[in-house]
Structure formats: C-alpha cells, structure tokens
C-alpha cells in the first residue's frame, strides 16, 4: 500500500472510530489528553507502517494496541518516582488481552459524554470537549465555530482535560437517582452547539453551520448509545426538524423567510419523517420532557406541509407545558405568539408585559414577538417601533432586513 492509500485508510478509521478509540483509552486511565496523545502517536506510526507492510486485518485493533503501548510508556515515565509496578503489570496484561480479542472493544463513549458534561467541568468547555473527543474535530475549527481565538479555545480544552485527570472525574454512567440531571447536562451541551450554529447564518459552509451539523452527529451518537432515553430522542427530533428546513429558511435571493411562510416543498421530507419517528419512540417511553415538547411544537409546524394549516391552539398548549418543565422567557414568548394567532392577542400582550423589562431589553425574539402581537391588535405605530427595535437587536443581516421590511409594512 502506498502512502496516499494508507492516509485514506487512516482517515476512514478516524472518521468512524475516533471517539470510540479515545473513549476506550481514556476510560482506563482517566486521562483524556493522554489518550488523545497516545492515539495520535499511534496514527503516525500507522501511516509509516501501513504504507510499507500493507493494511493490518483489523486496523482499529492495531491502532488500539499501538496506543496502549504508548500509554504504558507514558505511565512508566511518569511513575519513576512512584511505586507503580503492580499497576503497570495490570496495564500490560490488559493490553495483551485486548490485542488478542480485539475486533470488538467496549464502547465507552457514553461515559466520555458524561465526563465532558460533568458538573465539575466549566460549562463553556463542555461542548468543545465533546466535539473534540467524541467526534475528533480539531480545536481550531471548534474555536471558529464558537467565535473565539484558537489559542483561547485550546487553553479552555487543555484546562478542562487537566481537571478531568487531576480531579479524577470518573468515567461512569450515572446512577438512576442522578440520571435525569446528568443527562440534562449532556443534552444542554449538545443543544447549545446546535443553536449556536443554527440561529446564526445563511452561509452553508460557515463554521457555525458546520457546528450545527456536528451537534446533530452528537445527538445521533447519544441516541445510538441510549436508544430509549426519551429526552435524547426528543433532542434529536428537534434538531432534525430544524435541519429539515435548512433549504427553506432563505429565498434564492438571500432573503430570510419566517417559518410560517416557508415553502414546504423545500423541506426535507426524509428528515421530517425521521424526526417524527424519533418523537413517537420518545412518546412511547411516557416520560415527557423539555426537548420532547420543543420537538412536538416543531412537529406541528412540519404538519403544515400536509394540512396547509398550523394548529396554533395546540402550540399554545405545548408552550404552557414547556413553561412548567423549563421555565424561561423563550417559552413565554412562544406561547404569546401562539395566543395571538388564535384570536387571544390581548392575553398575549398581557403575558409579554408580565416579563420583567430588564430581561428583555436586548432580547430580539421578545421584540419580534411583541411586534407581531401588536400588529394583530392593529396597534400599528407600536408594532412598527417594536419591529424596528427587534431589527436593531440582531446581528444577522438577512434577519435584520426582514424585520425592517416588517416595520415598513406597518407605516
């Protein structure tokens, strides 16, 4: 095998197995950074060896063995001062057994996800850690998606990995008593990557947009690892419903198109079907949660492709449920918009005015929703002012232009 062929094979293995290899290596030592180093060393060796000797039968097992040997060397060096002979023997024996069985090694990615989203880890580092260790994404690309400098991101990641190692954050699946809370940290970290990528831009190839797709990949990984966790199913359904509309969010001339005006023919029906299927699976578990409700709301919007209408009364109810499960201004705003659509605009305005002004002073969705409700009430001058305010609170040119157009409609 020549070098380009070896390169291609390695890329293939990395794409499919990086997270599993890192998770396996790290779960035994508690050292994520050490696992990554050992694996990248093994990949270098593979490149040199495979182009000469040809591909091994089981490339993953080959990499794992090489990485394990590297880990053992590293331990030996670190442990000079320590009496770690017994431990080293254990590690060596384990590496041997590993090499013998080898084509199937345990999938420890779930544990790795829980380590990345451990409450003892800086929340700002959780999503980047997942992207890097589970999906194998380079830190420079993560940095551009999060709009921070590569060195700042690298530092954040290094610090988190040091903490994992030196504080012994355990690689384990949480007990039932703590499950819901711990899984919510994992889900939040995935969703924050998705929204950061989704809300931002129309540019297909931008780093934040790629981040949204990476978040979907993490969501898929979690569902694959825990196929019966209703909120994981709900989160993936939510993301896929949004992904399904990617081609409809902007018109060919770059104009922003609001959800209820999107051309449903441009929605991806396969993604919608997949989302609906996930949501059904989640519902069968009979354990409602925030992400399932949010996905259900998106499911109603998706139904417009078939029925031609939107059941706003049902959406208002779902937002009420959401306000109980995940109180926040997002669900209050969503409910108000839905109420305005079913002839309850007075109530909607009241609800919006019940939110404290300082919380919404710079919150674009609030001002857009308020404008919308005021328009329904035919308070056009106030609606225009609110659309203008919303327009001045967004950083996205297409959305800003859209809101200014709406404001102009009210004159």
């Amino acid at each position, binding site marked *: 095998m020549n070098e380009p062929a070896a390169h291609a094979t390695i890329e293939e293995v990395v794409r499919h197995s990086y997270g599993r290899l890192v998770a396996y290596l790290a779960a*035994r*030592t*508690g050292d994520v950074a050490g696992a990554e180093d050992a694996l990248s060393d093994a990949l270098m060796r593979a490149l040199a060896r495979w182009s000469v000797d040809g591909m091994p039968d089981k490339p993953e097992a080959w990499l794992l063995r090489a990485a394990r040997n590297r880990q053992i060397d590293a331990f030996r060096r*670190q*442990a000079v001062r*320590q009496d*770690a002979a*017994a*431990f080293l023997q*254990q590690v060596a024996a*384990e590496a041997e057994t590993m090499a013998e069985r080898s084509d199937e090694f345990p999938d420890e990615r779930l544990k790795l996800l829980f380590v990345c989203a*451990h409450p*003892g880890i800086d929340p700002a580092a959780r999503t980047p850690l997942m992207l890097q260790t589970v999906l194998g994404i380079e830190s420079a690309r993560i940095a551009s998606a999060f709009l921070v400098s590569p060195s700042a991101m690298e530092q954040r990641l290094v610090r988190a990995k040091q903490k994992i*190692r*030196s*504080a*012994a*954050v*355990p690689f*384990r699946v949480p007990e039932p008593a703590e499950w819901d809370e711990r899984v919510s940290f994992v889900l939040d970290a995935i969703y924050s990557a998705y929204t950061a990528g989704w809300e931002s831009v129309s540019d297909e190839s931008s780093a934040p947009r790629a981040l949204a797709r990476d978040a979907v990949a993490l969501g898929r990984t979690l569902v694959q690892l825990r196929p019966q966790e209703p909120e994981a199913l709900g989160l993936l359904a939510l993301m896929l419903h949004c992904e399904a509309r990617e081609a409809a969010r902007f018109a060919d001339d770059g104009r922003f198109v609001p959800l209820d005006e999107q051309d449903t023919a441009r929605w991806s029906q396969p993604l919608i079907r997949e989302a609906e299927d996930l949501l059904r699976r989640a519902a069968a578990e009979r354990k409602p949660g925030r992400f399932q409700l949010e996905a259900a709301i998106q499911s109603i919007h998706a139904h417009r492709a078939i029925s031609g209408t939107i059941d706003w009364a049902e959406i208002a109810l779902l937002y009420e449920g959401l306000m109980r499960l995940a109180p926040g201004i997002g669900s209050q705003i969503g409910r108000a918009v839905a109420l305005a659509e079913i002839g309850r605009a007075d109530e909607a305005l009241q609800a919006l005015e019940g939110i404290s002004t300082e919380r919404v002073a710079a919150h674009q969705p609030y001002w857009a929703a308020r404008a919308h409700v005021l328009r329904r009430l035919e308070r056009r001058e106030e609606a225009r002012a609110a659309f203008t305010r919303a327009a001045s609170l967004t950083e996205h040119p297409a959305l800003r232009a859209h809101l200014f157009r709406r404001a102009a409609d009210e004159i």
Partner: protein
Amino acid sequence: MKYALLVHVPPSHFEQRDDAATVAAGRAYGEALQAAGIFVGGAGLGSPRHATTVSVRDGKRQVHDGPYAETKEFLAGFGIIDVPDLDTALEWAARHPLADRFSVEVRPLLGAQFASAPKR
C-alpha cells in the same frame, strides 16, 4: 485518590459555631468519615482573628497579625479523604453539615492520582 474538603465560611460564623447542635453535627460527620474508612485527617480551624501570617523576604522574617488576606470567606476547617473518584468526594462534601449554608471546596491533593492504582 485523596481529596481535601475545604469548608469556607463568612467571618460571622466563627462567633456562632460553638452551639451544641453545630458541634454535634461536626463530630457526627467526622465519625461517619472514619466509619466509612476514608478519613485521612482533618480539623476545624480557629478564628482568622487569631491568625498570624509569616513570610520570609530577603532572608528576613516578616510577621503580621491576622490572616493572609482579608476576604469575605475564610477556611473554617478541612478534611482529607481517600475515595475512588471526584463523584464520591462530591457526595461526601455534600453531606458536610455546613454545606447547606456555606460552601465546601473539593480539591485533589497534589500527585494524588498516583496514590492509588486507577480502577478498571
């Protein structure tokens, strides 16, 4: 893994902690750590008002009355425990009788990951 549990409290606590309930709760907690076989050491600390701080600069000893720095919170006590991982240490920290009013900082001891073999 050995961890220090560091109990941080506001200065006012040092004047209020001699009541029987607080003392009894502290003692019970120490006994629970021992019974679990994880207690390495620890103690309650006197008031920072009685602290004296020493440093040596240019070979000269400098001594001043009071704690190292005037802060809003002071160390009121510490315990060192030997447990498998951070989650177990956090469980014990959460059980500390002052954790519901003040804060318990959990810090690994330096080099503590070498002290016991990593679990499988």
